[in-house]
């Protein structure tokens, strides 16, 4: 097998808090092939977004840092690369769209300028060429009447349209990887479906690999081939989406799946009882302890879970689950 496009190994990201240092990402490894799409799943506060910001080199200044591990993109080590090189990669080879379309666009510039700017910065396009390209991109993300709307300001657009503009910005330079951090959470359900359709279609057209961050299992089933379930900064389980949904090996994954009614129904026409996972994600200061962090919410908990962090149990087709009882599930 050839080198993957993106390879993250033993990544550890630390945040400095008032009462000490917390590992928000603790020993995370995964791979992403060209054109592949992968999903990060988990409740809020599990470190999904931090992974994305870590790859982009956008961890909050003076607060967050990559403590150890490697992020290899296209043979290049991102953790040690210069700021200048990182800027050349950002928005060009790896780009990102965010959760809040309402606030992610700059209110005082036209959407056209905000798209054209990336093209000028990375592709060296002239002002007019970049502007024309911006119109084409708006058209590509299916904003009607692109030629006129290109000189609109963000406040003249709806949330769904703004997210389309964000997608246009992100895809302007035809990046190799698009990171989408909860791109539809802030939008209406109908608009969500449209955005997913759009992303899927653009992916088909451009062959961009997508890292999709979400807490919505439905979105995972729709968008990704492989998934990574995160819990409290750690990898809980990863593997092919269908295989995991069919047979989760981690109690947390199992809990997440049973929270959603329809994926089960569409996949194998059975209906399970809808449940929820009791309890909450542990606070940041408990991250990094040498035990299973899910133990307090797990119905299979044993003494072993409280004593030692579980290693990853490996199953077929790259499915891995960090649980002492993975084999028994």
């Amino acid at each position: 097998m050839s080198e993957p496009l993106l390879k993250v190994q033993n990544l550890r990201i630390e945040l400095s808090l008032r009462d000490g240092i917390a590992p928000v990402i603790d020993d995370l490894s995964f791979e992403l092939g060209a054109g592949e799409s992968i999903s990060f799943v988990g409740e809020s506060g599990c470190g999904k977004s931090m992974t994305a910001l870590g790859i982009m080199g956008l961890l909050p200044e003076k607060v967050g840092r990559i403590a150890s591990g490697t992020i290899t993109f296209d043979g290049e080590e991102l953790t040690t690369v210069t700021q200048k090189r990182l800027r050349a990669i950002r928005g060009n080879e790896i780009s990102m769209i965010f959760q809040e379309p309402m606030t992610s666009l700059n209110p005082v510039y036209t959407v056209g300028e905000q798209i054209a700017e990336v093209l000028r910065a990375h592709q060296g396009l002239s002002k007019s060429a970049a502007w024309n390209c911006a119109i084409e991109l708006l058209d590509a993300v299916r904003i009607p009447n692109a030629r006129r709307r290109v000189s609109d300001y963000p406040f003249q657009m709806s949330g769904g349209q703004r997210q389309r503009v964000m997608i246009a910005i992100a895809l302007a330079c035809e990046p190799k990887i698009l990171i989408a951090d909860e791109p539809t959470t802030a939008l209406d359900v109908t608009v969500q479906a449209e955005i997913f359709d759009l992303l899927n279609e653009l992916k088909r057209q451009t062959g961009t690999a997508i890292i999709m961050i979400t807490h919505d299992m439905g979105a995972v089933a729709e968008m990704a081939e492989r998934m990574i379930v995160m819990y409290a900064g750690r990898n809980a389980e990863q593997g092919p989406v269908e295989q995991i949904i069919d047979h989760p090996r981690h109690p947390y994954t199992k809990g997440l799946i049973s929270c959603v009614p329809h994926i089960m129904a569409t996949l194998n026409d059975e209906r399970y009882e809808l449940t929820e996972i009791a309890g909450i994600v542990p606070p940041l200061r408990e991250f990094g302890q040498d035990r299973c962090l899910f133990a307090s919410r797990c119905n299979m908990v044993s003494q072993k879970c409280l004593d030692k962090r579980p290693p990853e149990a490996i199953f077929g087709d790259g499915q891995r689950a960090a649980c002492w009882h993975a084999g028994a599930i």
Partner: protein
Amino acid sequence: MATLQSLLTRIVYAVILLVAVLVLNFSMMHLAPGDVADTISQSMGGADQEILDQIRADYGLDQPFLVQLGSYMGKVLRFDLGYSFFYNTPVTQLILQRLPATLLLVFTAQILALFIGVILGVISARKPNGIASHFVTILALFGYSAPVFWTGILLLIGFSLNIQLFPVAGMRDVTIEGGFWVHFVDIARHLVLPVVTLGSIFLALYSRLARATMMEVLGSDYVRTAKAKGLSEREVVYKHALKNSLSPVITLAGLQFSAVISGAVLVEAVFSWPGLGTLAFQSIIARDTPTILGILFFSALVVIIGNLLTDIALRFVDPRVGGKR
């Protein structure tokens, strides 16, 4: 279209404000003890009741309040703000002679304070524990607490008496001869200390606000987007963040125009700057009521024009301002 209309509304509204100032002016003149007849008779060295009545009839002072108010408004419409018996000059002419000096002082101080304030704000927002940030904190305390005339006198002692760097008083050196640039440099040299004195108060205000808004903007989602686009640090800060942090500062500056003029009155008194403030000071000592009221009217006019300019500036900075109203 909508922009033009809202600007027109602002102008109509400004005119109403000016009329209100005139009504206030006239009422105060009416209420104050003593009238024009007294002033004239004093300048003639006293007069008997008959002459006083004659003067009152001549000036329409025996008419009812509203009639007098009407004729006063009519005169103002013809740019007639009355006659100064102290200077023996029409008030309008007197004020127009002094206005340029005040405008020069006020606008230079405002623009410089705004410009430097924003730069200081940006620098200190990026390094909240840096020298610039501490300077802003200290300046903010000093700018609020030090009496402006005292600051002026201290600067005068320091930089034109002890170190004779700048002239002590006035706006130009009458003995100087030469072309445009010679006079330009001369006026600029006279302008330095008054502008520093007046500007320091507002610099304190603007730099503190600029720092606060800039810090907020730097943490915003759209700045993160700009970074994620791979833009350079300079573009992120000076293109994306700066333009957003400008509108609160410009709004504040607009609200400060009347305070700047108040400050200018004191600064002019300290540096004998030949503007409206000095004129106001002199005419108050001389009890020259028409001139004092004329100055109040003109300074309100300057504030209103300043506010309109602010409004226009805001439209350039923030596209949301024009559309929403």
